[in-house]
Structure formats: C-alpha cells, structure tokens
C-alpha cells in the first residue's frame, strides 16, 4: 500500500465513523423528539433583551422558528448553546428563552462572554417556560405555522439541529 492509499483508507474509515455517529445521534434525537407536546402556544407580547418586540407565532408562519430554552446555570446547555449559536449564525430563525438566569443585563453579559449570538427573550421568573409547558432545560422546539412541529430535551448535536430545521 502506498502512502496515498493509506491516507485514503484512513480517511474512508473516519468518514464512515462520522456517518455512523450522525445516523445514530439523529435517530436518537428523533426518537426522543417523537412525543410532540400537544399544546397551544399562548399568544403573548414578548420582547428580546434589547426590548425589541417579537411575535414568535407570526414569525413561525413565515419560516420554521427554533425556540431554545436554556439557563446560565444549566450544565448541559453549555454543550448545546454553541450549536444553537451556530444555527443562528446561518440563515435560520432562532430565538432563545433564558430561564431564571437573572436580569437582562446579566443574560446579555453572559452571552457576550460566551459568544452566543442568538436573540434571547429573558424569562427571569420562569413564567414563559411554564406557560409553554417547558419544565426542563435544555429544550428545543421548532415552531411552524403557529404550532410546535417537533421538540427535544437534553443534549443534541449540531447535525441533529440542522436536520430538524431542514426537514420541517
């Protein structure tokens, strides 16, 4: 075997492993998300950290909206937030909800420090999450046409997120 052939066979194996990982995580993601909460999203007046009003329901009629429930104190969120931030950096519509994480300034400072580029609705008293029936973080909902199209709780991969948004 030449060096080139060796490199190729190595790359092939790596690619295979990556593919397996993606397939397995996607399946798991899907399996976890299969119980779509049978809920009506309350129509509320909401605002981002900088007080810009946002209407999630109206947005969801235009394109799928990813709503990410997280908290500064949630350990697993640290591993999910970068993926969500990456999604927000693309051409996806991503809005996050920070639960019980302090006032707007604190959440903004936290996002700045960690480099999270997604828009955030602050929910310092855990009211919004409660109204939406979300009890655990991290939770990701995909809203489409005013309804929850899918949801997942716990760790998820960038690939899983991307597929989720793509196939809505």
């Amino acid at each position, binding site marked *: 075997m030449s060096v080139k052939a060796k490199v190729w066979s190595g790359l092939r194996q790596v690619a295979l492993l990556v593919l397996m990982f993606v397939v397995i995580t996607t399946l798991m993601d899907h399996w976890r998300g299969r119980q779509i909460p049978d809920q009506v999203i309350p129509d509320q007046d909401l605002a981002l950290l900088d007080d810009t009003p946002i209407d999630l329901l109206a947005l969801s009629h235009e394109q799928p909206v990813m709503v990410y429930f997280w908290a500064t104190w949630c*350990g697993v969120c640290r591993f999910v937030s970068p993926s969500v931030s990456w999604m927000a950096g693309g051409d996806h519509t991503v809005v996050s909800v920070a639960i019980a994480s302090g006032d707007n300034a604190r959440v903004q400072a936290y996002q700045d420090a960690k480099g999270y580029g997604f828009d955030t609705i602050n929910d310092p008293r855990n009211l919004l999450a409660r109204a939406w029936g979300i009890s655990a973080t991290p939770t990701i909902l995909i809203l489409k046409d005013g309804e929850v199209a899918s949801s997942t709780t716990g760790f998820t991969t960038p690939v899983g997120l991307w597929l989720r948004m793509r196939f809505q």
Partner: protein
Amino acid sequence: MAIPLIHRLRRPRCLGLLLALCLALPFLQAQANTTDTGWLTDPEHPPVAVRLSLTGERDGNRLHALLEVTLEDDWKTYWRSPGEGGIAPELDWGASRNLERVEWHWPLPTRYDLLGFNTLGYERQVAFPLVLHLTDADAPLDLQGIFTLPSCTYICVLTDFELGLTLSDPGALSEDPDISHRFARALAQVPQDTGALGEVSAYWNDSQQRLQVLVDGDHPWRDPDVLVDDAAGALADAQFGVPRIEQVDGQLLASFEVSSWRELPDMTQVALLVTVFDEALAQEVTVAAQAGSAPVVAAGPVALSFLSMLGFALLGGLILNLMPCVLPVLGLKLHSVLAVGVHDRRRIRGQFLASAAGILVSFWLLAAFLWLLKVTGQAVGWGVQFQSAGFIVVMVAVTWLFALNLLGVWELRLPGRMNNWAATRGDNSHKGHFVQGMFATLLATPCSAPFLGTAVAFALGANSAQLVLIFTALGIGMALPWLLVAAVPRLAAYLPKPGRWMLVLKIIFGVMLLLTSAWLLSLLIRLWGGPLVASVSMLLIVVTLVLIGKRYGGKALAVTLSLGVPLVAITTLWLSFGGGRFALPENHVWQPFEQGAIAERVNAGDLVFVDVTADWCITCKANEMGVLLQQPVYAAMQADDVALLRADWTTPSPTITAFLRENARAGVPFNVVYGPGAPEGIPLPVLLRERDVMAALAQARGEHLGEHRGEPHER
C-alpha cells in the same frame, strides 16, 4: 431571600396537602394548627419530593421548621452558592402573614463534578433547618411559601412547590419529638462558628486572580476542604473551583483560582463566608480579604500526592504484565519476535509500538467510559464489574478459550491467527498488533482489581483531566515492557533460541489462564449458587479433558489427570481454607453491617470497626491477611469493646453503595473506625497499614496520640 410576590400559573400539585386538608376539614375548627405539609410531589417531575414541617418548639417569637427534600436516582440539587454550574433553591414567603423573616440554614454540601464543572450540592436527600421569626409571637401564623427547587442530571428542571401551613393558635403547639430529632440532626450538618478554628485570614492576589485562605491553629487535619462564598451574593457569578490545600507549619492553606465570565468585584471589599470542613469538623466564619498573598511558603504536598498517585498508576500498570491473565500475551508476543527473527528491528519496533498503542487506547476507552458514568452521576467504582454475572461469564469464556488455545487443543488461534494474518500483510498493517494490545488489556481486567483499585478510586474522585492522566499512566505502565522492546529490539535477541521450552512455557501460561478462569468461576458462586457453578465447572473440565485427550492422545490425558486431580484437590482445599491462611489465626467473628448499629454501639461507649469488602477484591484479602489478621492489630480488634461489622459488596447492595458514597469512596476495600472519640468515623487508607489501624483505634477510643501536637506555636 426576598422575592417580589408574583402570581403564577400553577396546577394543584400538593396532593398530599389536599388530602390532608380533606381529612382534617371536620376537625379544622377544633385542631386549627397544621404543622406538616406531608410529602409534596409534582406529577411532571416525580423524582423530587418536598416536605415542610414544624418541630413544635417555640422560643419567643421563633419557631423551628424543617424543609426536607428527597431526590431519586442521581438527581442533584444545589447549595446556596453552587458555582457556575448550578442555581440555588429559593424560598418566597411573600404571601405569608405574621412572618417577619426566615433564617435558612444550609447543611454542608458535597462537591460534584458535573460535566466538567465543580458544583456544590446535595444528592439523594437534604434537610434544611429553618428558623421562622414571627412578627407577633401570639398571633396566628399563615405560612405561605413557594419553594423553587432546581434539580439536575443531564437536564435541569425547576420545580415550584407551594408550602402552606397555618397556626391559628401558636400557643397550642406541642413538640413533635420525631421532627425535633430530625431538625437537630439537620442542624448538626450546618457549618457554624463555634470557635473551633484558630484565626482565619484571607488574601486576594488581584494579578493572579487567586484567593488564599489561611487557617491558623493546630488542628489534626485529615482531609480538609474549604468553601468560599458571600452572604450578599456579590460573588454569585464567581467560580472558585477546587482549592489546592496545603498544610504549612500546622496551618492550613487553601488556594483558589477564581474565575468568572463577569468582572469580579473588589474581593477585599466583600465579606467572605469561609466554610472549613474536615472529617469531624465544619465551621463557617466571616472574613475580609487583605490584598496580597498569604505570608507562608507553601510546600505543595497536594501536587505531590497526585504525582505519587500517578506513580502508583504507572507501577500498577507495569505489574499487570506479570498477572497470569496478561503474561501469556506478552510471552506470545516475544515468541513471534523469535519466529520472525530479531534482526528486522524496524518491523519489531513497529509491531510493539502498535501493541503499546492498543493498550493505551484501551485504557483511554476505559477512562472515557468511567468519565461518562461519573458525569452522569452513576455510582461507579473499580471492581463493580465483578458484581455482574454477564461480565464474569464473558471473561470466563475468554480466558478459558485462550487457555485452550495455549494448550494447543484449539486450532483457531485468535491472537496467533491475527498475528499470521497481520504478518501476511507485511509491515504496512499494524492492526493485528494493535488488537493484540487491546486484547491484553481485556485479559488484564480480571487481574486489575487490586492494582487499579487504588488509582481508579482516586481518579474517580479527581477531576476529569486527572482521571485521563491516571488512566494514561496506567496504560503507559502496562505498555512499558512493550515500549522497552520497541526502543531496544535487541533485547529480544537475549531470549533463548526457539525450541521445546517455548511449548512448555505455553502450557504453563495455559495452566495459569485456566486458574484465572477457575477464580472467575468461583466468583459466580455468590451470583448463581454453588450447584450451578459446580455443574458448569464440571462441564468445562470434562470438555477440556476431552479436547486434551483428542489432541495429545490417551497418554497425555493420563498425565494431565494424574497431575491435575491432585492439583485441583489441593487448590480446592487451599481455597476452602481461605487461601494460604494456615499460618493465620482464626478469622474475626464479623457481624453483618447495619448502619444503625454504628451509632448504637458508639453511644454505648464501644468502638466499631467497619470492613466493606467483596470476594472479588484481592486488595481486601491482602488487607485482611496482611494486617487485620496479624498482631498487634488482631488482638486490638479482638478486644471486648470492639464491634466488628462487615459489609459484603460481592453482589450489588444499595445500602452499602450508599454507605461508600457517603464516605466519598468509589469502591472496596473501605475500612472505617468509629468510637466515642470519633463518632463521625475515621476512614482508613485503601491499603491498610498496621500503624494506621492502631492509631485509628486509639483515636476512636479517645486516647490522645502525639502529644507533641499540643506545643504552642511561636508567633
């Protein structure tokens, strides 16, 4: 915790309370005081339950209440300053009437490594003592609280519990002895300033972002730890991490690297709450930090202890090669070198490096597996795999098949074939050798318990980076002989020329492996019962004999039988007599472990020696034979006032696992001595030494050891 009153959307979730109310309704006029909410649960998050109860004790306008929380599985909740990876529970009493304020006492938390973050919290259960201050001591009290309880595993959940108690007639309160007792027990877990510590000072080095806490005074420290937070919440976003603890001239020095994603406040302006705790001590004092560094020269014994642990790991890994399970693999490997010819150095080097890599990768896989268990909060310990029948069966099969292979009765040679297969591929493929390394590690697992136990128990208590380092050291240790040959392939040339001796050696290796199989089978007795294991053993023996007979003919079979039968008989005898204990005194009479018995005996003035052990734990056996059954320890343990309790962890036992966890141990062996002088217990090191046991017994008895400690310090 003053929180503005907010009206929330809430579902009725206080089933217990409702039920209690319904039942109590007819009597409500007569019995106007409800002093217990009962256990409250949220159907949306069943793993946690909460209960608020009044002890009934009254002290002027103060009432004692106990807020109890239970958490199932590995759910955890947090301390008042849990660090960056957590959020404190909150209580909002805004809707109460006749309540001036509430003192909330926080029991000493435990450090958890949650997903790489050091977090302070509680697992399984925690009880918070509350002191309620009434505005008017004699007026009715309407206690309405919302308790927001965070609980996390791989997800985090915030649960709100409505706590409602009413006292229409505080004067009619009577003390509930059971709740009072639980309150007192919970309060005993709360660090307080009783003046047990010497002077405590703190130093903030701004350029290094380092906070040092110096505790003066000659306390006999065993395993001290220090926590820092503040009452005002100015340090809520500061991450203190695990401090480096050093002892300098009898003083305790804790150094914290402080970090935050926010700008830190001026630390010298913050009233620091410093919690210092050790095995039998928990103190909380308020300190103001001075600018600069602590005026002591630190020696760094903690770093040394980690280094020595790495050394242990390296040595343990190296010794693994001599174990009967692994030696054959290394032996075979050297054979292959002889077969190939020692002159092709490059080739030998490549092969041995590949095997070493296989070993290292296997250990990393093990580390990753343990890390995963650890971050998900599972109870782990080295050796628990021997509690699983499935694992033992697989290992019996592997060792037995490999033994037969070495004995030459089994033609499909696994490592040998891979060897050939790899050899036919020439130098380009090192896969076969890599797999051999992994196979060696797999075979090593049954023999690894005594050597890995210490290192792994340490690694599980350490942070993730240290865990990886320890396992790397284990892997390198085990790979050392392979690396040595890789470095100096000429070494292989010093081996005798291939010949008949190799066949003999193979048979010796085969017999060693068969003995390993037998040992593993003997572990199954506890899990399967004797008769089944005996039948399986008989079956294996017969199959082995038939195969030997087929391969080598009747003569060899006769030789095997004439050698084997006495050997098996002697081994059985030896094992049934407890393995080489002929020279030892009769074993202690152990009572089965019962946690409740400890306090009972200690209160009666006795000593309690607890031995947590397991059949598969060779270190436990070594401790027993080497120390516990030797004089003078034997005589000391036989004294009339010593109760000997043995906890058998051979098969899984939740109570024993819980006991180990309470003592922050990952596995067996674990020995601890209780007594009037040490009601909290004195844990002994994993590897027992005579003087440790004797000192612990004396200390537990309340005898003063080491009077030299009492010398006053020159200032």
